[in-house]
């Protein structure tokens, strides 16, 4: 899996590719970390876990990234070294809801903010968001408000 930071006049965009949806989510999150900080210490910080559920893949990616930014502000850590497991409705089976539910179970290392020179990414946006399966795996493009 890999990510690149892309130009955007006022903001910053992350473009990511990965062989699986789970790896793609982690790659975009790693891109968010890179957009926040030039250099993350290799060690330090406690790992934490989170879980999000949403009605579509795009909404799930949005909610996951929004949650990471929330955790950053509340825990006062820069989430790094992301791991994700995305569970799609087919693997959950039928549920009682009208809408299918997509779930992400994720973990990150919370690097204390006083240990890094991080800048603030304000929010994830839907602007120009792309999340699609391609011949060679999965692709995402996400713009963040800086």
């Amino acid at each position, binding site marked *: 899996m890999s990510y690149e930071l892309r130009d*955007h*006049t006022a903001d910053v965009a992350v473009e990511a590719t990965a062989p699986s949806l789970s790896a793609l989510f982690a790659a975009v999150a790693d891109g968010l970390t890179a957009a926040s900080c030039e250099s993350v210490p290799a060690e330090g910080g406690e790992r934490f876990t989170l879980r999000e559920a949403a009605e579509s893949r795009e909404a799930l990616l949005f909610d996951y990234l929004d949650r990471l930014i*929330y955790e950053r*502000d509340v825990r006062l850590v820069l989430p790094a070294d992301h791991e994700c497991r995305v569970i799609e409705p087919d693997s959950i089976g039928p549920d009682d809801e009208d809408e299918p539910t997509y779930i992400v179970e994720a973990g990150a290392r919370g690097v204390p903010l006083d240990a890094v020179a991080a800048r*603030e990414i*304000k929010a994830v946006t*839907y602007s120009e968001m792309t999340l699609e399966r391609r011949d060679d795996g999965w692709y995402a493009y996400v713009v963040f408000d800086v």
Partner: protein
Amino acid sequence: MTTREFDGIRLEKLREHVWEIPREGDMNVPARVLASEALLEEIGEDDTLRQLKNATHLPGMVEPALCMPDGHQGYGFPVGGVGAIDARTGCISPGAIGYDINCGVRMVRTSLTYDDVRGREAELVDALFEAIPSGLGGGGVIDGDSDAIEGALSRGVEWAVSEGYGIESDLAHCEDEGRRPDAKPEYVSQKATDRGRNQMGSLGSGNHFLEVQRVTDVFREEVAEAYGLSEGQIVVLIHCGSRGLGHQTCNDYLRRIEREHADLLESLPDKELAAAPAGSELAEEYYGAMGACINFAWVNRQLITHRTREVFGDVFDADPIDDLGMELLYDVAHNIGKKETHEVPVGPDGRPTVAEDAVDRADRELYVHRKGATRAFPAGREEVPEAYRSVGQPVIIPGSMGAGSYVLRGGAESMSVSFGSTAHGAGRLMSRTQAKQEFWGGDVQDDLEREQAIYVKAQSGATVAEEAPGVYKDVDEVVRVSDELGIGDTVARTFPVCNIKG
């Protein structure tokens, strides 16, 4: 007729500095760009014009959707965009207001002159940088316990003054007297207040800053006198917003719109334009939550002002109010949505319509969305503070670290040309990624100090590079266009002395 075309989008020049994208296809109304030819060239280089065209699809948009002279590409709705939408039959769009609800600027006067400060810049910038939280995780001026959050959300600056973080005249010199009457804190999520708790009185990072400035030019003596400005005077400019609390509120409502008003969302060309139909429960809740975030942002800037006064008091060994005259000149938002009454063309059914279908003109209540645009009401409007009502509302246009800023007053033409709005800054020209490739923060700081006697202190060198003077448009040109259109008249120009940022 003079025309220009950028990526298939054709603009017709209606008159000097006014360019129209004619209505076509699914556009509800035409769009207009207020720009000189030079600024239009820059605006046409990114996706601004497509985003402006997309914004015309919002239901109830009143003619015309606008891009200010400093406009540039945003997300969904362009930065520099003004969208006035019928508050009865249209919609309200969080994305057309922006993530940083009530991002804005305030200017604090002092009785100091540049001569009083010269030679003490390093001491002053160090003291300000030490005292005023900036960057990520730097905390706030106060700890945001439940009472403080509730007070800020519901009462705005009035709460801050009652707690000893300001003086009575701060209320009179703030937009809406620092309190949105229709704020509804109960519609701000727990998640949002969690994020605000650590950030009450903090600059954040990105393009937010606190700058000590000197007044270098006065263009309209009578207005400058009413604003209490004179050449050589020291002022303080504070630029920041509602921090994580506002950002979270925007996203909370974007997601609720996606779930509860999917039909409207599907009719729009960009998901980031997500809007709640006027009159819906969600529109009312968002409007109330946004009002509370507006209050929170005013409190944020008020707390920074309080701490700034303390720093000046310590550095100059004087009382900041009685001796240094540190009174608020004005505080004005540039990311905001408000119900305002404007005269618009109406059709036979009494609803706002495009001019060619209109049978009359009438006052209508509109949701005026300003995203990277500043309200610029002219003299005589009751919304302008009494102290300035005879000369017009102060408009503060921050420039880059090396180019100075402007104080304007709402121009006589603003109500007819731009729904009472003008620009909000210089406007970015270069992406942050490119800026970091072209500039190194340390060099920028050294150059500013050596060549222009501007002292900069930042949490991150990358931020200094991203905010280098070269990444912004020419603020002089932005202000010239505003002045010549009569939407915002130049009153004074200021130049940086010290700058702190995240």
